[in-house]
């Protein structure tokens, strides 16, 4: 093929312009800062950027798809990097545009930073069909500190329509595990209802509750029950209130003052209700006083300070710490220890367990807290649920053993089934 003379001239001009533009743009940062002293050059820049040749190459292989496993209203736009997006600063980012028609007009759906290869458009309507364009752009400040953006050409990709899914496939294995565990729990609850004997191992911490309440009665001192610093939406607090119900019954029977300082208003209401029920059950509803359950503060260390003060002033014989505790655990438990109180703790916060173990007489570790209410009630259905829970644990142990063997033999990495996607 022979190049015609006008073509050659045109190409040469293009190359010259392109080179000049690149040179000027590469000088742009210092030029922009020195704008006041170099006004002539700035004009040249503007002239240069008018040339389409400085625009970066567009993103390639643009793909659009409905965002999977969502509730609709979102489209995932993905692409491969522009050949100019190689870290040399020729690409500042990507402009994602959207239209309901292939021919436009296109509106901005969003921007993505350079090096990005996907963008989620979260503003789609499930009833509509969309077309997308992904253009690379180069952005700089001109002499007047105005942002100038040079955008590449872009091809239209589509159509695509967003939709909501009826099942999140990423969670299939979680569902299977959940069904197994829930099934086992319900199965054993039903079995227990029919009168099957359920064995439950001794939990020293819970067995000591009776002794702890009795000690306070003998000494004529108070019992403090601290239900943690979380609200009623934490299962640990619910478990704690369930245990409180049992402890309150014993306290009511022995006529011992049980005081419950709380740090959340909802816990105040719930704890008071549980206490009222417990006192009514043993036939002493009038013995319960308002001051027994009271709110202190939502603030973590304000709560700890208030309880520490109460412990030091009133020197209770027994202190229960049941529920969700954080850094205040040791501050409370050490103060309780210093006044010689018998202390029983229970929490599902693994980080606080060492502190309670060090400072308390008995500690319910993790799941024991959740089992405590069932253990104290000796109610068959509740005990049945514990057995079902153990079956779940058995399944996990089995999976761990099989997973370790498969991974060791380099057959299959079982953990991928639970990987976040």
């Amino acid at each position, binding site marked *: 093929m022979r190049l015609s003379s006008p073509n050659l001239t045109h190409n040469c001009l293009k190359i010259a312009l392109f080179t000049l533009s690149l040179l000027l743009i590469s000088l742009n940062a210092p030029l922009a800062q020195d704008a006041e002293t170099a006004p002539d050059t700035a004009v040249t820049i503007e002239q240069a950027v008018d040339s389409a040749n400085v625009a970066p190459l567009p993103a390639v292989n643009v793909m659009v798809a409905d965002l999977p496993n969502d*509730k*609709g209203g979102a489209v995932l736009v993905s692409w491969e990097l522009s050949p100019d997006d190689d870290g040399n600063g020729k690409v500042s980012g990507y402009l994602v545009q959207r239209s309901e028609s292939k021919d436009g007009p296109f509106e901005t759906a969003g921007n993505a930073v350079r090096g990005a290869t996907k963008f989620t458009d979260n503003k789609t309507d499930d009833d509509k069909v969309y077309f997308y364009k992904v253009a690379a752009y180069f952005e700089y400040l001109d002499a007047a500190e105005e942002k100038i953006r040079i955008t590449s050409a872009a091809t239209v990709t589509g159509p695509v329509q967003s939709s*909501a*899914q*009826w099942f999140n496939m990423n969670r299939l294995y*979680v*569902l299977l595990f959940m069904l197994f565990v*829930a099934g086992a*729990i319900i199965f054993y*609850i039903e079995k227990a209802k029919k009168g099957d004997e359920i064995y439950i191992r001794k939990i020293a911490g819970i067995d000591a509750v009776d002794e702890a309440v009795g000690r306070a009665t003998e000494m004529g001192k108070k019992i403090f029950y601290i239900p943690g610093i979380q609200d*009623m*939406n934490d*299962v640990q607090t*619910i478990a704690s*209130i*369930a245990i409180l*119900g*049992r402890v309150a019954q014993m306290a009511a029977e022995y006529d011992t003052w049980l005081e419950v300082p709380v740090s*959340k*208003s*909802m816990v*105040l*209401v719930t704890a008071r209700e*549980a206490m009222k*029920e417990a006192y009514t059950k043993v036939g002493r509803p009038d013995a319960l006083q*308002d001051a027994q359950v*009271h*709110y*202190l*503060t*939502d603030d973590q*260390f*304000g709560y700890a300070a208030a309880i520490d*003060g109460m412990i030091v*002033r009133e020197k209770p014989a027994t202190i229960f710490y049941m529920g969700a505790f954080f*850094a*205040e655990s*040791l*501050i409370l438990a*050490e*103060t309780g220890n210093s006044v010689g109180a018998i202390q029983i703790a229970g929490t*599902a916060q693994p980080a606080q*367990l060492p*502190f309670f173990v*060090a*400072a308390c007489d008995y500690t319910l*570790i*993790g*799941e024991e807290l*959740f*089992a405590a*209410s*069932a253990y104290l009630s000796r*109610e068959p*259905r*509740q005990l049945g649920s514990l057995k079902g*829970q153990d079956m*779940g*644990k058995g399944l*996990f142990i089995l999976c761990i053993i099989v997973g370790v063997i498969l991974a060791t033999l380099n057959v299959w990495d079982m953990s991928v089934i639970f990987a976040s996607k």
Partner: protein
Amino acid sequence: MRRQIPILITTIAGLVFAISYFIPHDPFGESESIFGDWITIVQAFAVWLGALNLLKISFEKISSKSADRHYAAIIIVSLIGTLAVGFYDGYSGMAQDPQVSFRDPGTNFDWLYRFIYTPLSATMFSMLAFFVASASYRAFRARNVQATLLLIAGFFVMGGRVPLFDMMISPITDFPVFSWFADWIMTYPNTAGQRAIMIGIALGIMSSSLRIILGIERSHIGGGSG
């Protein structure tokens, strides 16, 4: 009826939350957010309940001339004082242009936050250092083999988390024995133990939740089991 309605609400909310984890499609996806909004609203209103209870108990302590009445007085003054400052700043801030929130830097409330609340709270938290020391002093004893292992692990983790101990052995070896061993303990035995406890806790939560959803566990709503 007083028990049935809460149980019904619990069951419905529990099931919706469980189902919406697997089904993103409406109505489940949306209802999860709606329940979340409800919780936020209920919690926001409940704050007043606690504050009023605190005031009531404190006033009762003062009127009954309890031994704690001085503390009760401090509580009342602090609570009402902080509230008043917050309201004043919020009210006067609305008149300014641009509007200033009571929490913005430079307000009286911000002063209370920075120079009273912050040091008081930090003081309470810093007490942990003293209690960790006294608890370690009392509990870390080589009573038996397990306790000795715990003691050794604790020694290396405490020594390995700060650079001094590796610096001390640097004339003997360049290998950071303490930090390496601390990192190994944290990465392997600690992670394994944490995972085991977390799996147990997760199953315990599941079992408890199921008991609550099915209405078997009712003591938290003032009802006996079953």
